[in-house]
């Protein structure tokens, strides 16, 4: 089963241009900063919002197509939507909430009983949503969605309403539920770790525009766009200019680097992940002198903020993270020479 999405919606200042495909048997992440149109995309697929143009097709069934004048109501789309706040009906108990998802009256009781036991909600049946913990609320909401027999699951930041100490457990449970689901799953988040742990492929959404779908490992190993690189958690980026000799001038760092790979068309930035930057003994290729601006002690590591030859003094352009003992050996060096290994330089385009 394939979900094909190609939708456009104009809000004046903000434009949504989103297209991608999601297949059965895998969890597709939609990764983007808040306000980039992730939730809006899900709402268009579910039929809650109406796109201005485009097409949404699920397994050959057209859910929305402007030209064919097809716009199925949410009731007929068979799209399960897990809302950020779960949207449990506060006036109904757990059992009643789940029953609300079952259309078939004859099967209602049995379905509810089966879901309550498979979602570990025994003993909670007669409680109201606000008497449940965050994790139980999410399980109730998922049970209710699965009760309605959806063909696709849309998950809208499912962990944002949870306390962090609950998150881990709930995430593991969700992973189990998702792997048992047969249709396509769309998972919206702004959190790269969730993408890494739960998704198989990911589509980056930057200011309303979707980028090419990529396998999750590519997002972390070789992001190709600036927004993907930033969303994957890379803190060190610099504006960049391609040179004729195949090297790159990092404008913000004031250094010319040899990336050891051909430069892509439209190169605009380069990035290096903090843990790939290595301290060096002295000048050399891909090595630049830095000045320590700030040291932040984390629980198990030390984060060092550095200014570079290209930047103004006092303004940190690079950030490295070291084990405490390693930093202790380096502290006090002035300047601190750092190597940006050519294999680990990320070459990025604007979008």
């Amino acid at each position, binding site marked *: 089963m394939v979900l094909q999405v190609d939708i456009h919606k104009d809000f004046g200042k903000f434009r949504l241009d989103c297209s991608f495909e999601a297949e059965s048997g895998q969890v597709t992440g939609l990764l983007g900063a808040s306000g980039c149109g992730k939730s809006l995309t899900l*709402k268009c697929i*579910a*039929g*809650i919002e109406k796109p201005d143009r485009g097409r949404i097709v699920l397994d050959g069934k057209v859910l929305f197509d402007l030209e064919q004048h097809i716009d199925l*109501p*949410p*009731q*007929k*789309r*068979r*799209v*399960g*939507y897990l*809302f950020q*706040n779960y*949207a449990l*009906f*506060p*006036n*109904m108990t757990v059992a009643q909430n789940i029953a*609300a*998802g079952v*259309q078939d009256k004859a099967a209602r009781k049995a379905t509810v009983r089966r879901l309550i036991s498979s979602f570990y909600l025994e003993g909670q049946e*007669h*409680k*109201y949503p606000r*008497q*449940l*913990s965050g*994790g*139980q609320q999410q399980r109730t909401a998922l049970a*209710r*969605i699965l*009760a*309605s027999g959806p063909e696709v699951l849309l998950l809208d930041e499912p962990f944002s309403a949870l306390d962090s100490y*609950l998150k881990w*457990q*709930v995430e593991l449970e969700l992973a189990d539920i998702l792997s048992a689901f047969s249709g396509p799953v769309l998972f919206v988040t702004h959190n790269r770790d969730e993408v890494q742990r739960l998704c198989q492929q990911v589509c980056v959404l930057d200011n309303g525009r979707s980028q090419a779908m990529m396998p999750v490992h590519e997002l972390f190993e070789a992001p190709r766009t600036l927004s993907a690189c930033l969303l994957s958690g890379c803190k060190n980026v610099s504006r960049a200019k391609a040179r004729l000799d195949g090297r790159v001038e990092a404008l913000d760092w004031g250094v010319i680097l040899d990336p050891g790979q051909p430069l892509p068309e439209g190169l605009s930035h380069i990035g290096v992940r903090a843990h790939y930057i290595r301290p060096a003994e002295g000048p050399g290729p891909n090595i630049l002198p830095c000045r320590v601006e700030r040291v932040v002690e984390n629980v198990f590591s030390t984060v060092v903020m550095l200014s570079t030859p290209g930047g103004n003094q006092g303004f940190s352009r690079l950030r490295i993270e070291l084990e405490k003992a390693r930093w202790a050996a380096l502290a006090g060096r002035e300047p601190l020479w750092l190597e940006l290994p050519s294999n680990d330089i990320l070459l990025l385009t604007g979008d």
Partner: protein
Amino acid sequence: MNSLRIATISTALIFFLGIAAAYYVAKLPRLVKGVLDVVLTLPLVLPPTVVGYFLLRLLGPKRTIGLWFLNVFGLRLTMVWYSAIFASAVVAFPLMYRTARGAFESFDITLAQAGRTLGRSNTWIFWRVMMPCCKQGIIAGTVLSFARALGEYGATAMIAGYTPGKTATISTTVYQLWRTGDDEGAMAWVLINLAISAAVLLCVNMLEKKDRRPRRRAAPVSGEVE
């Protein structure tokens, strides 16, 4: 007990009309909503005599609607016992409409959206989710409307007049008795009115408490960690 009959019927009318109006107006675009809001709330701020005047212009036996009813059904719409229903319904309507609309606007729209993605009809969502969630506002609106309908005087006096035993309501009776110097008679009706109003409010309070109790009993399971 003409008064109770009138107040009950008009409250029942307003209940549905007010909720329907609130439901549809809350969905409208802002400009239309603003205009309709003013029109639907006007009876609340207009002097009841002005409302009465408008009603007479519309429903009087020689006016359009009144004439039509007289011709088709042979029914007079003014100066009969049910005339006061029109008066009290129009005057009390804004109270129901406004409180219901306030309740609908604070209703979490994602609940309705969730219901739709679950395959539930809009009717189901309205009666099973929206109304129970807005219950407090709806009850408050109903009670206020009932109280207002019971106490309606100005428009009622104009459209139904005062015929003892026929069109008289408590409020018009009190005025007539006082005017004719029957102080004790007036006092008696005042006390009756007080008793009815107090009883209504008491009933509502009890209903609300009864509604809250079972939830409270099941509540203390907090601190539950998975």
